């Protein structure tokens, strides 16, 4: 009785309404506001620590593999587009295109997580750890040659792995929930032109994750 209405794409009636958004959509926006603050804590700490870091911060591209991540960025942007296309399809009542675009989104998202795992594996292999540089690794040699300043590498590792790790965690959560929706709602054709709140709401989350990555990519990899 009470939950029946929450997924429908209209505000609950009869009621005073603060915003013209149905509950799940409003709830997702509210949740995203809190996510902004969570990433503020992580990104803000990064900015603050970088400002006060001893020794020169590693220049972009020295430690991190930017081309791979640029490809990853591209993947995530593509998945965002396919997500919004999926939404537009079902808003026009097109079940077939919804299924296709939704699947593309899941694949791009999963590929992003995979590439990030690959990136982590290689970084750790090269000696880049959350605590700094591993003794006797490739990066340790760069430090010995003076290409890298060791003083700030500990902070570099700490902030890099925490920020990208938590972003990756969010992407993973998004992929899992999309797979769940794909099999329980999308494939059985439960979304309709009138009722497709789930696609819109998971889309909001997905675009937000994309948005965070756009910021992270710039400030972590390029600056």
């Amino acid at each position, binding site marked *: 009785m009470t939950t029946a209405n929450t997924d429908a794409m209209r505000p609950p009636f*009869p009621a*005073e309404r603060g915003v013209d958004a149905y509950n799940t959509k409003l709830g997702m926006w509210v949740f995203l506001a*809190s996510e902004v603050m969570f990433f503020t*804590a992580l990104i803000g*700490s990064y900015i603050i620590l970088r400002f006060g870091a001893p020794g020169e911060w590693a220049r972009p591209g020295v430690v991190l593999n930017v081309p791979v991540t640029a490809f990853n960025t591209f993947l995530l942007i593509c998945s965002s587009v396919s997500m919004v296309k999926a939404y537009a399809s079902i808003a026009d009542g097109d079940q077939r295109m919804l299924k296709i675009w939704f699947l593309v989104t899941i694949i791009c998202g999963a590929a992003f997580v995979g590439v990030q795992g690959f990136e982590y594996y290689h970084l750790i292999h090269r000696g880049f750890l959350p605590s700094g540089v591993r003794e006797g690794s490739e990066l340790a040699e760069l430090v010995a040659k003076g290409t890298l300043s060791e003083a700030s590498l500990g*902070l570099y590792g700490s902030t890099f792995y925490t920020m990208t790790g938590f972003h990756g965690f969010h992407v993973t959560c998004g992929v899992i929930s999309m797979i769940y929706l794909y099999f329980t709602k999308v494939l059985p054709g439960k979304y309709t032109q009138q009722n497709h709140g789930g696609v819109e709401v998971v889309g909001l989350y997905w675009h937000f994750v994309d948005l965070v990555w756009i910021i992270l990519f710039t400030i972590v990899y390029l600056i």
Partner: protein
Amino acid sequence: MTTVAGTPHVGHAHSDDRSFLRKYIFSTDHKIIGIQFLFVSLFFLFVGGLLAMQIRWQLGFPNQPMPGGKLLPETMAPDGVILPEYYIQLVTMHGTFMVFFAVMPLLVGVYANFLIPLKLGAHDMAFPRINMASFWTALLAGLVMLSSLFVPEGAARAGWTMYAPLSARPDLSGAGLGQQMWCIAIVLLGLSSILGSLNYITTVINMRAPGMTWFRMPLSIWALFITAILGLLALPVLSGAAIMLLFDQTIGTHFFDPAAGGQALLWQHLFWFFGHPEVYILILPAMGMVSDMIANGSRKPIFGYHSMVFAIIGIGFLGWIVWGHHMFVSGMNPTLGSSFMVTTMIIAVPSAIKTFNWMGTMWRGNLRFHVPMMHAVAFVAMFVIGGLSGIFMAATPVDMHIHDTYFIVAHIHYVLFGGSLFGLFGAITFWFPKMFGRMMHQGWGKVHFWLTLLFYNLTFFPMHILGMAGHMRRIYDPTMYDFLKPYQPMNQFISVSAFLLFAVQAIFALNFLVSLFRGAKAPQNPWQDNGLEWTLPNPAPHGNWERVPNVYRGPYEYSHPNATEDYLPQSQKLPGDPEPAAASRASQGREA
């Protein structure tokens, strides 16, 4: 769309065929979840109190065996004498339990859940299942925190503020696993609060009964709404910080480790950026509920409803830009200190407005001193002391002397005990009939009130004097210091008062438990209140309303000239009241 004016919707109880487990344990009903929060957080309140008693024993009677102390293991108190390492665990866990697992869930978990749908005329929360998840996450967090007391090295040892680098370095604090469990529990609690907050916010924005416009909402709901916003935006910062702290402890990151370029003050900034809104999370709901109780007890509309609302909003906003006043002597840039000092002084103003408006409400009223009203008036009286003592700390030069002394301890207890807990005792008594269908005993309630008020002041007022003398917080043995030796009798006096204060809470506990089973059956509207919740039977059925009532006026129309009684429920239609526009906007009502 007509609602029969003021008629109780009795006899509409839905046929409820849910199993016991669904109904009382894994329930999605906001009322049951509120009650679950109530029992759990009262338990943690008891735990926090028990820890405080041990602190007081050590301070009053250092190095003497504590009565019953032999029950504690050797690692805490050999022969009943508290060890210094156990003492700082006590200090840490008392603060942690009281702030995060007692007062915060009591105010927000219990009353936001219980009151928001009932007072706004909704069937339930916007997301009942998320609501249930929020409770179970909070319980899990509490259990993790509680069990950390019993791991080999004991619980976290860096104070409830968990200042790094002490908290980040197991080799320096002496506690490894306990510190990690603290972080994990706090992250879980943050998750629970965020889930709860997004529920409260969505419900308040989208699910108000027709006619329940923003400025017809009771002040309790306004306060809980702003509290939810504060929680929504503050808790993730704490969670982020706790995660970084956890990584510092476990995987070797260097966020707060100055040796590798990390910043010790970063933790303080993040913590207090969360921490100051948190302080208002701990007091705003009590302010809101006290406003309801004072208007009810005075039989008079609240004085200056709009300015009360704006004061709540103002506190909610200013609460974000005062965090640096916890850090005046931390080595923070003194110029930054000046700006924080100014904002801190300014935040005193909305609190002053609220205090005077409460007094204005009582002025020329017809005061009924039922137990909730007594607690509400005591709230005002005690909150004033806590608020005024805050001005001493806001003045930066004075803060140099009283920072980290018992003056601060006195201040926070005047606000959290004198404020929040008095508000809560009142609220528990006030909504007890709504929760359980029975009344709490008024006579015993009054006995409990007077004894608590007495021993509470005897416990916490002398702490101001100790603080002025320079008595530091969190020290194991004050008799180590020549300048504190003369104050030992006062410490003993405080300890004895604290034991008595703790003991008289048994009256409340017994009253609560006995009333649960033997209390007098509650009438429909025991306090003759205007709130929507009192149009329902006690306790309210699952789903609350058959048909959502229409709302015709604000919540505080007591002694209205046109009403026959001295109260006028929000859903009672007087001749000439227009039907709310939202009621006719759509034909699809949400019938059961």
